[in-house]
């Protein structure tokens, strides 16, 4: 049960980023799964601890490149989504061409676990849980502050927000690059626990999109929207564990 | 011909139309006037089938048409032209009109009728709809509605957004239709613009008929 709740937090983190990309970035980020994969592959190149920092930085930079491309080429939501899909496929194929092997296991790192309420929970899962908590705390503080008002404004109407002095483009850049960095970091954190292969991010992308879509049905403004995402993610995860 | 009985419409708790009853006879031109938000366009959309009334009934040629879909209403003989023109942008003028004629005729005859209407209205056949001016778009809307061979034309603010020259042009074409014996229901903000066309006025205010 604890593991499934933690997995729910992980999905919530990614789904929130998808939601932020959609509402502020104004597109459906289909490259998200590939950033997760990129993070996993980065951990093959160096020490685990270094890979966490490196994946965050690389994720941010590649995300920024994607933002610049969208800014330059895109005219509407479909254009931006297609560009993100192109980036996703490009990342996956570059990894496939570079690493050649279909599945890789990260060795040399001990997969430790702790016991919480008589249940074994992997340490890496706890790292993700911690990351999710930090993200939610940061998001809550932001949304409840004056910056949060600007964020809500930009979510509802970008053009009007711009007219009232909100730097919408800077917000977009931060959301797109920041969320890419988070996805990359997640991939890196969880790399010791998975078989790393270029297509590993697609299932996570699809689940995140579905959770984001389901939680949008319930609506909500500000932090309530993102808490709704968390609830849906946890429920999904728990139900999955119960059924399977 | 057309009989509207106690029609009402509510949007999100706001009463837009309340107890509207009116008649339009054959060969009659009725002007529906009123300020913004009085419910003129809503009434026309309800008659055309784009909206369902919350209460009341509508009869056309002694047949009830309340709640019928627009594609069925137009087959019965009521044609609607939009307030903001909605041309088929990627089609030419003649194709825009011919596709409406396909409702009753085969392709060959539909294009013949489209050609006749283009001549009548004064539109260039082969021009692509996306390249038309505002006045031409309004006329295309009317031409397309005509092509369905209607018994009753519903013209939703045919003069809105037009300059003086284009208003005169559209006005003259609508007058032509009146002389040809078409029954019409036309909405506008101001009485003056419709004075020469309509047989009588119905004034709406706050969703109710105050005059006519």
């Amino acid at each position, binding site marked *: 049960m604890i593991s499934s709740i933690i997995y729910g937090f992980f999905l919530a983190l990614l789904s929130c980023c998808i939601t932020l990309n959609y509402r502020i970035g104004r597109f459906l980020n289909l490259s998200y799964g590939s950033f997760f994969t990129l993070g996993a592959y980065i951990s093959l190149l160096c020490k685990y601890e270094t890979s966490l920092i490196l994946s965050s930085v690389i994720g941010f930079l590649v995300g920024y490149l994607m933002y610049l491309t969208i800014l330059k080429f895109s005219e509407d939501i479909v254009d931006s*989504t297609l560009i993100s899909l*192109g980036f996703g*496929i*490009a990342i996956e194929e570059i990894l496939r*061409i570079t690493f050649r092997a279909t599945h890789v296991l990260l060795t040399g790192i001990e997969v430790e676990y702790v016991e919480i309420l008589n249940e074994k929970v992997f340490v890496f899962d706890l790292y993700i849980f911690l990351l999710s908590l930090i993200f939610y705390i940061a998001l809550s503080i932001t949304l409840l502050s004056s910056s949060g008002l600007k964020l809500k404004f930009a979510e509802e109407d970008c053009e009007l927000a711009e007219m009232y002095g909100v730097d919408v483009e800077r917000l977009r850049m931060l959301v797109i690059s920041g969320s890419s960095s988070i996805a990359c970091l997640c991939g890196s954190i969880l790399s010791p626990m998975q078989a790393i292969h270029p297509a590993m991010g697609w299932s996570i992308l*699809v689940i995140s999109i579905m959770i984001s879509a389901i939680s949008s049905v319930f609506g909500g403004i500000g932090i309530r929207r993102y808490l709704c995402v968390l609830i849906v993610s946890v429920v999904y995860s728990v139900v999955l564990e119960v059924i399977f | 011909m057309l009989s509207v009985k106690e029609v009402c419409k509510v949007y999100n708790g706001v009463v837009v139309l309340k107890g509207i009853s009116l008649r339009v006879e054959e060969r009659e031109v009725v002007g529906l006037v009123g300020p913004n938000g009085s419910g003129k366009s809503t009434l026309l959309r309800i008659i055309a089938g*784009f909206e369902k009334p919350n209460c009341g009934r509508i009869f056309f040629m002694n047949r009830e048409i309340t709640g019928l879909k627009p*594609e069925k209403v137009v087959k019965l003989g009521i044609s609607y032209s939009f307030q903001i023109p909605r041309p088929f942008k990627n089609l030419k003028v003649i*194709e825009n009109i011919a596709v409406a004629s*396909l409702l009753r005729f085969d392709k060959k005859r539909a294009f013949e009728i489209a050609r006749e209407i283009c001549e009548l209205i004064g539109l260039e056949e082969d021009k692509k709809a996306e390249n038309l001016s505002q006045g031409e778009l309004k006329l295309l809307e009317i031409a397309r509605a005509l092509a369905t061979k209607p018994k009753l034309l519903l013209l939703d603010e045919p003069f809105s957004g037009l300059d003086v020259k284009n208003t005169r042009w559209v006005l003259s074409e609508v007058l032509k239709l009146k002389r040809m014996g078409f029954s019409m229901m036309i909405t506008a903000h101001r009485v003056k613009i419709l004075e020469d066309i309509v047989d009588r006025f119905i004034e709406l205010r706050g969703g109710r008929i105050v005059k006519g």
Partner: protein
Amino acid sequence: MRFNRFSCILCSVRGDLLIRDLLLVIIVFAPILTQNYSILWISTLSMIYSLLVISWLFMERQSGWTSFAHSIPFGLAAYLLAIYPYAVFIAPLASTALFLTISKLDRVKFVFVTFVLTVVFWLSSFYMVIERNGISIGGEEGFSVLSLYLSESYIFAVLLLISSYVFVRVLEKSSIGLKMAAMRDDEEAARAIGINVFKYRFMNFVISCSIASLSGICYALFFGHVSPDVFSIEVALFPFIATFIAGRAWISAVVGSYILVIVSRVFSGFVPDFHLLIYAIVLIASPKLRRWWGVKC
């Protein structure tokens, strides 16, 4: 300036119907003259994919709905042919029902949802396992299908391609095509002139899914084997990429397919799946490419 001149030439070629039809005949029949096995093989595969692109383009061009899930009718038909051939007709019907359901959303969400469904189908196909004669078959390995000889596959593909090409061209010019074009531009205005939008959308989706299913059947018979690759994102994106490379005329469906198949075969000798990078580049450049193809002479 150079781009505009090139696109003008292309427009004038595209504008000439006879030349386009002649081009199709040359592309389809020229490989027979070579009597070269490899060329015939590539040509057959290209024609199979051309069918898929025509089916996609028919939905996109005639009804205005862009799908990223044409791998579903393609793959479903191939799988049904392998597992239970008598039920192969279910593929176009089920796909049509799926597309019609998703079309309740707007056109932008339709694009997103179809892509998500493609990924779902692809990931689920790895778990498609059945028992035959006490042995579990399918999964990642896929299923075997009775295959045709290359010459038979080639003839089958030629017949399907030419009949689909002629069919869509004739339909486009007919009154049904005109109504679909009106519906594509503005559904509400189409309803105002008596067009039953649901009926024509249904018709459009059925025709599109049927052609895609035929393409899937042809694919299965050509290779003699189907695997989860038939549902892959690559297959789903193929029509989109082909039309962005070669344009949105019907002949472009064929030309684009040939270009993509040839490029993938050429590069696969050096770097496997390198052509997918080309897909990525086309997707990234798609907004620019769309505006470029929209340039009028």
